[in-house]
């Protein structure tokens, strides 16, 4: 059905494009909102849709969804980079710098059993906010939106090894934040 709407949109049918956009609106917004915050995300997503409509003729490939996410993610990162000129934001650490694992404290909740715990989710949300945006984007594209590593590499215009490193570092940062709040790791 999406392929049919895409084919019609490519012939210049605006209603077909609106149909496609409606099907991706929520996912695109939740992704951009986690990169920028909800207020700026509304404008960025709307701009991304308009930009996609105007450049639909240049879309090549089969995944319209990945293409939309690429446009929206690039716009979000551009907005964040313009904010960097005004405020300090974490930069991507050098690739060869080893990621460190915080040591779990004794007596805390088992990390593997806390999925769904509201407090844990709040810690995860906070930890994600302090992770560099490229790592955050890669992790969200993987764990929330379900893209595979190859798609993420195309969306973020980066190498497969870079995607792998970013996802690992972002997950590790979140894991360390949880451990430092008293959660201990699984017994094994």
């Amino acid at each position, binding site marked *: 059905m999406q392929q049919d709407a895409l084919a019609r949109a490519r012939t210049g049918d*605006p209603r077909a494009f609106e149909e496609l*956009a409606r099907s991706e609106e929520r996912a695109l917004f939740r992704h951009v909102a986690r990169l920028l915050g909800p207020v700026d995300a*509304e404008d960025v997503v709307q701009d991304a849709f308009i930009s996609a409509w105007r450049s639909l003729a240049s879309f090549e490939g089969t995944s319209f969804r990945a293409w939309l996410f690429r446009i929206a993610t690039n716009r979000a990162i551009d907005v964040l980079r313009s904010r960097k000129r005004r405020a300090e934001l974490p930069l991507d650490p050098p690739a060869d710098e080893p990621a460190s*694992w915080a040591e779990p404290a004794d007596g805390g909740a088992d990390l*593997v059993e806390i999925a769904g715990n509201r407090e*844990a989710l709040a810690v995860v949300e906070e930890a994600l906010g302090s992770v560099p945006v490229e790592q955050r984007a890669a992790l969200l594209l993987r764990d929330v939106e379900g893209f*595979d590593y190859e798609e993420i590499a195309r969306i973020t215009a980066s190498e497969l090894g870079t995607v792998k490193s970013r*996802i*690992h570092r972002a997950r590790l940062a979140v894991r360390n934040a949880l451990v430092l709040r008293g959660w201990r*790791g699984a017994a094994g």
Partner: protein
Amino acid sequence: MHPLADLSAHVDGALAPAAAAALDAHLGGCPACRAKLGELRSVASLVAALPAPRPRRSLVPRLAPPPLWLAPARALSVMASGIFVFAFLVSAVLAIDPSMGGGGKGGLLGPAPAARQAESAAGNLGGPAASAVVSAPGAAPSAPFAQGARDSAAVAAGASAAPAAKAPAQRLELGPSPFLWLGLALVSGALALALRRRLRPRA
């Protein structure tokens, strides 16, 4: 040597088959790495479980041109809203004070002064009719005349009383209630606003 950097990719099934097999072999004999793998898997679940923020409005741009009937419909609803507001104001004024209906304009002013005139005429006619009635019982030869006088006085009084009785009842109203016009004004105004939003270009 613990292949910690490969753990996340292994969680995601993104390692090449040979690398995945080698890592599995390592995990079989390394509880520390198995624990870390479990932690990263839990983190992936937590990130996936984060509550999704929702937009406050629709973010899909309106790309299709609006239907041809939309602009005229909006113009009509704006006009209707104005007319209903005017009707509400007139209706409200008449409901509060019918005498404020205006000067020499026919239908609006007529009933109230006519009512007063009819009342005073009925009062004047009632005088002779009353004296005719009072004098009638005392004078038998004049009874038919008195009866006639009474009858004509009664007819005259009735005729003048009818307009007098009618005049207060002829209070001018514009529709059943001013709030009807107000309601219609609000409905047509809301329709005009909704159509205006639909007409506004989004791209």
